């Protein structure tokens, strides 16, 4: 059985290594500051006992006040999982760091989020539209797109 690590538990560990980086944490997930996302990602992948080596899905949700980017991480070695989130409050020019260099699984998924939500992933080597064509205007999965 894959053990879902609670947000509180992992939040404590992240806060020890990166003080002030936790926005909130609950049973299901932990929300971290997007500025430190990349470093936290590396920490989660390389720390012994955590070793989240496998990124399953990456997506975004538009809550109107902010975008929430959701990462589900799994450790194949320890068979545990984690829901990691980060927020982006800028609607005009939303930018979050790319985790491509940590987990290559983010390659197409970040492009997809960029395509459908217009969120830029800083550090992605080839950030362009994935599903829609290059001349397409707007980002359909935003709540204000009609």
């Amino acid at each position: 059985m894959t053990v879902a690590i609670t947000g509180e538990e992992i939040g404590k560990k992240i806060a020890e290594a990166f003080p002030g980086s936790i926005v909130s944490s609950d049973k299901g997930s932990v929300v971290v500051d997007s500025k430190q996302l990349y470093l936290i990602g590396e920490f989660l992948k390389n720390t012994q006992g955590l070793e989240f080596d496998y990124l399953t899905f990456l997506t975004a949700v538009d809550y109107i006040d902010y975008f929430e980017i959701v990462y589900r991480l799994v450790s194949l070695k320890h068979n545990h999982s984690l829901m990691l989130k980060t927020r982006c409050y800028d609607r005009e020019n939303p930018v979050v760091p790319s985790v491509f260099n940590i987990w290559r699984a983010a390659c197409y998924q970040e492009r997809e989020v960029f395509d459908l939500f217009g969120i830029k992933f800083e550090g992605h080597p080839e950030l362009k539209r994935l599903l829609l064509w290059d001349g397409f205007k707007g980002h359909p999965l935003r709540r204000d797109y009609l």
Partner: protein
Amino acid sequence: MSIQTEPFILNIGPQHPSTHGVFRLRVTLDGEVVVNVEPVIGYLHRGIEKLAEGRTYTQNIPFTDRLDYLSSMTNNLAYCLAMEKLADIKVPERAEYIRVIFSEIMRISSHLMAVGFFINDLGAMMTPVLYMWREREKIMDMFEMVSGQRLLYNFMRIGGVSQDIPGEFLPAVKKFVAEMPKYLDEYDQLLAKNEILLVRSKGVGILPKETAISIGASGPVLRASGVKWDIRQLDPYSIYERFDFAIPTGEVGDCYDRYWVRMQEMRQSVRILEQALAQMPEKGEVCASVPQFFRPPRGEAYGYIEAPKGNLGFYIVSDGSIAPYRLHIYPPTLINITALQDMVKGWKVADLIIIFGSIDVVLGEIDR
């Protein structure tokens, strides 16, 4: 004297028989050797995630059929599991068995298509596919018995399945389960030692274990690279913890291993089916009571399964209304084609076709 050369760009698809749908590959070639590939997708994009936001939870089930249309039933299951997690619904015992039986039949059907078309890509035009279709036809008949449909079933519901199975269904499955090992032996006899298959697929398109994990590959592609990861066993959903089965894994992660893993998984599916048929309760409810305008509580849930092609997941955010606030589909084959670039470099164009065929893609799922 050296001859001046320059890279050549070849466009494969979107309409091309070996792309298994509307998929385009922009291939950079040095002579006949592949230097780089760039998959171009989105030709089948229907915006299912956006459409789902305007429809009720039950109305979204037919959309899930249209993702991976070769394994519609398992798509239904993943979506319903996410909903059941969100609203904490207990599925009746008999419905759980019906779901497992359909999932495993669907897996056999999907793998038959995958293996058949993989051999087709090798140049054995249609003959192996028609052998595989002989069995798939029986599977289609079984699905027609229960849902009236042969491809897009829309059979599962939140909390169970839409209706009980008809009387003629179980004898048909039992007959199929009894016959299938014999047919699998027949395929092995025809294929496993076939020299052309061995030469063309052994050592071709190797995906190393570390790369497979890093790109997030799942399903037979991940297992062929030697990673023993099957959600049915390592994180059992539904009632999979009750069944005894093995996880076949490959050694090197080449095209042959991916073919071999699929062949072995069909045998394991037959084993699960045998156990499920023996344990299944004779009578009982097939669907929990769920209101027509189902309003799950606020919150989010992620339901995921081991679909025939890999790890399929539905991430649902609910705002307490009758329609999802956000529905994200995590498709296995979109992630698996990330591996294409690593696998094809240095191989010839003809190998590119079989390496792509060995991933087993369905564009309905990649483009959504």
